[in-house]
């Protein structure tokens, strides 16, 4: 009998469907891989299983019994523990306090029995041959990799029948990742079910008995691992998109370099990024989420610090803060990720939003020229076809697509010709998406240079002239021409061997 059996599972967050038709079944004693693109619904699925969120519809059976955990405690009571990617550890507690948190051995006074806790910790670490850890060290003194290992110990401390590993190897160095794979097999041999999520195909291949593929919140296929090829898996993860969404791609890039970045590094998230963005070019930035794309954009805009060299239009520049990045025709402008939080003042009018950061442009002798401002605003509203009653309408009352157009207008009014677009179509309706892509191509034709990140792969494939794929804070590959495809991007992002 299946240990876990899931049918028609669904979950909505407001208007967004995170999971619609998830099915899943797995037996005890197997390693079951869960695969899917970013946003395919894997995270929601394991959050439901581990009791962190509750599902709206569908059924879960564990051991043939109905399962609907109210919270992580209830999930643990049924023998399900999760090792989260977003770690569930407490920075101000020690390693052993974290491992046994809420399950500490106690004395008659209700206090923690420290001797017993130490003994149990050492026994646990020994039993599973853990890499060296100091039980008494405070968690916030540990490296990311060490924390990940503590998180695994915490999951095992509950002696679960079902252990969920959510990208647990991604933070680990090679030796420790290998240990974890061995551990995973050991756990399966003990009769437990391990649900394993990883974006590294080689790992999945090395340890998974079976795999289930998610796409757009639904299960698309489940396979015995040795009965399916890498290519089939990738194809099923991507699916087929039929769209007339994208404008014709006309090569408008010149030989002039607008932005050159050399050896760009920032903490552990960006290491040694090199690239050149040309005038008239749309350069895509892709890869799996969390591999340095956000950090790259923020660092280029001066919002976070990075080392390395930047040249703008052939001149060496340093960007210490966003104000420096914005200045003039040789500057950089950003369409940020968080439209409502960073890009737009929702309680201000369309006019004010457009002109707030360029107020100097229509100030003469310290006085604001209202006519000049009105003319510029009108030109921009017309050019972008912003659907607002009047320029005085509050930005917060516009649709998502029109809000995004206001941000584009704001960015264009800075006159900067290097544009950083971070997921500019997120939460934008399909019609406006098409307009935004057309606008990007039009701007490129006018000589703007555009760096474009999208969490939606087809957008990169159909809009960008070239696509850089990031992995672990580096450029893993730069795809051009016919090589730009979803398979190519996902391949470079996931399959180590195919990286250029």
């Amino acid at each position, binding site marked *: 009998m299946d240990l876990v059996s899931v049918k028609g599972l669904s979950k909505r967050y407001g208007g967004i469907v995170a999971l619609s038709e998830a099915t899943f079944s797995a037996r005890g004693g197997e390693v079951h891989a869960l695969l899917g693109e970013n946003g395919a619904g894997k995270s929601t699925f394991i959050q439901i299983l581990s009791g962190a969120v509750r599902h709206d519809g569908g059924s879960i059976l564990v051991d043939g019994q109905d399962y609907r955990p109210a919270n992580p405690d209830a999930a643990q009571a049924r023998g399900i523990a999760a090792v989260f990617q977003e770690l569930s550890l407490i920075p101000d507690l020690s390693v052993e306090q974290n491992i046994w948190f809420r399950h500490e051995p106690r004395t008659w006074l209700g*206090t923690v029995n420290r001797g017993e806790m130490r003994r149990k910790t050492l026994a646990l670490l020994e039993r599973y041959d853990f890499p060296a*850890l100091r039980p008494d060290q405070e968690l916030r003194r540990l*490296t*990311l990799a060490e924390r990940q290992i503590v998180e695994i110990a915490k999951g095992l401390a509950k002696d679960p029948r079902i252990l969920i590993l959510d990208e647990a190897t991604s933070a680990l160095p*090679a030796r420790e990742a290998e240990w974890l794979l061995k551990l995973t097999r050991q756990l399966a041999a003990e009769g437990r079910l391990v649900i394993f999520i990883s974006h590294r195909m080689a790992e999945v291949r090395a340890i998974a008995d079976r795999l289930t593929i998610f796409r757009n919140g639904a299960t698309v296929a489940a396979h015995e691992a040795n009965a399916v090829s890498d290519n089939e898996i990738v194809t099923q993860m991507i699916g087929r998109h039929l769209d007339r969404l994208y404008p014709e791609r006309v090569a408008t890039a010149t030989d002039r370099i607008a932005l050159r970045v050399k050896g760009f590094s920032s903490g552990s998230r960006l290491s040694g990024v090199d690239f050149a963005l040309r005038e008239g070019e749309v350069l895509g930035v892709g890869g799996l989420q969390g591999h340095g794309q956000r950090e790259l954009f923020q660092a280029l805009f001066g919002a976070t610090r990075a080392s390395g060299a930047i040249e703008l239009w052939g001149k060496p520049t340093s960007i210490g803060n966003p104000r420096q990045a914005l200045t003039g025709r040789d500057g950089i402008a950003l369409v940020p990720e968080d439209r409502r939080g960073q890009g737009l003042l929702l309680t201000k009018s369309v006019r004010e939003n457009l002109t707030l950061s360029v107020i100097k442009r229509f100030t003469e002798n310290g006085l604001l020229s209202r006519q000049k401002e009105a003319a510029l605003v009108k030109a921009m509203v017309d050019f972008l076809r912003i659907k607002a009653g009047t320029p005085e309408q509050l930005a917060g009352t516009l649709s998502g697509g029109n809000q995004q157009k206001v941000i584009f207008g704001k960015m264009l009014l800075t006159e900067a010709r290097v544009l950083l677009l971070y997921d500019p179509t997120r939460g934008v309706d399909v019609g406006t998406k098409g307009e935004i892509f057309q606008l990007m191509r039009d701007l490129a034709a006018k000589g703007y240079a555009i760096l474009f990140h999208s969490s939606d792969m087809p957008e990169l494939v159909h809009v960008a002239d070239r696509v850089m794929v990031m992995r672990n804070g580096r450029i893993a590959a730069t795809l051009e021409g016919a090589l730009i495809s979803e398979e190519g991007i996902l391949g470079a992002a996931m399959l180590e061997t195919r990286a250029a």
Partner: protein
Amino acid sequence: MSAAERPLEMAQGPAEMKPSKVAIDWRGRLLDRAPFLVACLMLALIIGIYGSLQSGVFTLDELNLDTAAAMTLMLAATGQTIVLVRGGIDLSIGGMISLGTVIAATRFTDDPSTTALWALIILALGFVIGALNGLLISLLKLQPFLVTLATWSILNGVAMIILPTDGGSIPGWWVGFASAQLFGVTSPVWMLLVLVLFWWWFRATSIGTTIQATGSNEKSAFLSGVSITRVNLVTYGLSGLFAAGAALFLVTQTGAGSPTIGKDYILPSVAAAVIGGVSLFGGRGHLAGTLIGAFVLTLIGNLVFVLHVSSYWQPVASGVILLLSVLASSVAEKAARNRVQ
């Protein structure tokens, strides 16, 4: 190719693992305790100056006197410390202290059983009102600052309705509690000892650890199965309970009720905790630091007195000390962070 045949391929991770058995990280531990150590240093300095200006400072009598002077603040600050470690703040203790004193001043009688009953009612009221704060914060997802500001105002108003001006009376035998002696040591000093023992026990209990963990990282705590609502309920409930306790002690010092006196303890309770190294961001700090901070704030009053300067210098000095300790902890925090990276 089957799973077994395929070699393992893995990306190079970001960092090499640290070696396991290293010597105890003394410098790290010292840095962790730096704010507390700075508070101890300040207290020693103040006692030193005070002792050099005034005779008889290093006597049991002086200890009895100063502890009695500090005890109301210490009790209020104990509750505040629990809330701060949770990552919140409780302004309503001001209202609760006022309310406690006016109820005591209007209800306490010479009959011990009536008085004891009302003392229990005041304590229970403190816990219930505090728990209500916690419940509001959780269920309405409101800022602790705003919720407790509102309850402070409400409690203050109720106190005014019960007793519009300072007055009422406290039976002499209740007032006598504060000077009762055992082995030459008065009850406030024994209470101080009980507070220290309470914290030693409380921090190691399940609820104590859970409160600290929730203050350290609420989301992680939730993912570990903690009920945030229950944590808030207990945290603010305890804070209200200690505020009520502070009121019951305060009336032994004033011998009367006051509908406005509580506000004098709101910010000092936070200041005492911060001087003692409790983090305003939650998760870190101990009552020992808070108690030392309360002593520092109290002794500054004595110092200003023996220096024969205007008593208005007391808040000035308190502010400077608060700034210094905040500075000390931020410097230590930075040093500790640099070591980790």
